[in-house]
């Protein structure tokens, strides 16, 4: 009862209100194409992982990632793909894998690490995510975490 007044959406009376889709450049692909891309990437990441090539699997998974509105299915697949790579990498290999990535990919990986920590599921292993988080922070710094917090292009 005491919080009932909060249900009024005052923003609808503001013609100039900032909408969520105005906060970032939207993806140029349409949602169906994003989903197809995510599925195709799942296959190619799997084959790269089978060859033991973690770096190219990870850089593949972290490029052209699905973000924004209306791509929830693709986001689920993309998170699974990234988590499968993180879960199968030996702890001692992590620093070298991270060093081979670009700063842009560091930022995207940090988003997936936080997304992973926020999700639940059989493929989420908090211990492994914390390990990656620690090593990624050593290389990309606090700035990388700040960028994850500010970026509206959520994964």
């Amino acid at each position, binding site marked *: 009862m005491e919080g009932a007044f909060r249900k009024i959406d005052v923003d609808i009376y503001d013609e*100039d209100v*900032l909408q969520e889709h*105005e*906060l*970032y*450049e939207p993806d140029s692909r349409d949602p169906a194409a994003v989903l197809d891309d995510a599925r195709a990437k799942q296959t190619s990441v799997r084959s790269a992982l089978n060859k033991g090539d973690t770096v190219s699997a990870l850089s593949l998974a972290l490029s052209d990632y699905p973000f924004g509105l209306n791509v929830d299915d693709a986001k689920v697949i993309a998170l699974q793909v990234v988590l499968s790579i993180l879960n199968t990498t030996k702890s001692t290999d992590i620093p070298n894998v991270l060093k081979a990535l670009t*700063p842009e990919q560091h*930022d995207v990986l940090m988003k997936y690490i936080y997304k992973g920590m926020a999700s639940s599921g059989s493929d989420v292993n908090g211990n492994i995510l914390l390990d990656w988080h*620690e090593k990624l*922070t*050593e*290389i*990309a*710094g*606090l*700035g*990388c975490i*700040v*960028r994850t917090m*500010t*970026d*509206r*292009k959520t994964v």
Partner: protein
Amino acid sequence: MAPETFNLSQGTPLLAHSFNADRSQVAVSFNSKDAQILTRSGSSWTPTELLAEHDKVITSIDWAPQSNRIVTASQDRNAYVWQETPDPETGKIVWKPTLVLLRINRAATYVRWSPNEDKFAVASGARAIAVCSFDPENNWWVSKHLKKPIRSTVLAIDWHPNNVLIAAGSADMKARVFSAYIKEVDAKPPPTVWGSKLPFNTICGEYTSPSGGWVHAVAFSPSGDAMAFASHDSSITVVYPSSGVCTVKMVSLPAMTLTWTSEQSIIAAGHDCQPYVFSGNEGGWEGVGTLDDVTGPKAGGAARPGVGKLNSAAFNTFRSADSRGQSSSGAGSEVQLLTTHQNSITSVRPYEFSGGVVSKVSTSGLDGRLVIWDANEVSAVSTKLGGLSV
């Protein structure tokens, strides 16, 4: 040479500072409704004048070097121009305020004189920039608003050397370049890289912060042919309108303020409590070091490992609560940072020029300190992480 550090307020935050032309006086805002003028005597600063007219916190101060006028902007939605005039009764020289008709309905956040000192611009939370010029007929300052297409609070502005263009950083995550041409004041400006026809409110450029952070600081390069901005996504972006945009992703916490020291060099400072130096050109920019040599011996600085905010008192309180179950901070709650500033830096400004480049800069911080740095004494950042111990 070690930086000159002045602890002006024993911990009261310094929101803004501005020196006079010969650097013998400085006007500061101690997070209060009055601006304080301090006069240098040897190695200390003595309060000499109080500029009291605002009703709320003064957010920004700028002291015009040639005309010796001070402009203050405040959360009370007003700006005042202060001028030294003889008191009609006593003949004593006093700072006399003149109200500026800003016509904004939110706080004023930032103010800067134009290079010719015949205009100034006030950024505000009213999604507008008030460009003010003097109306001699009515003997007051009038303003014209730059509004479109600003979608949120304007956090910082900077003037182009041609006295017409203005750069603005805003909480809608964009930095923009506008024309603030006032026909009563300005001669027709020659064409620049930003455009040739420049009526009032022309948008000469709009640039988004790379990872969606508020744009806290903007600055034109000395020539005016490039513009840099710092945003809350811990990045510095340099815009060359003719050739493109360069971005530096910082490993440290976000910068709140920046200044160019030459056409190839920028100093930025903020939540990491130390001024970082960046250098580059159209081909690309990179961080080259810090002005704060945190590895060297420092008088009064505690020799504790760790630099930056993570070693703060609050962090240690939570850490001891986590590891030892201590709920109160107890002994050693006030941890000294290894950096010269003990809290976020709010403003960095050029202090001294030599041979056309800035040789010294001044910074003020939330720790109440005013520091003057040699801009050429760049030392390597001690560790990439600033000593974060995870």
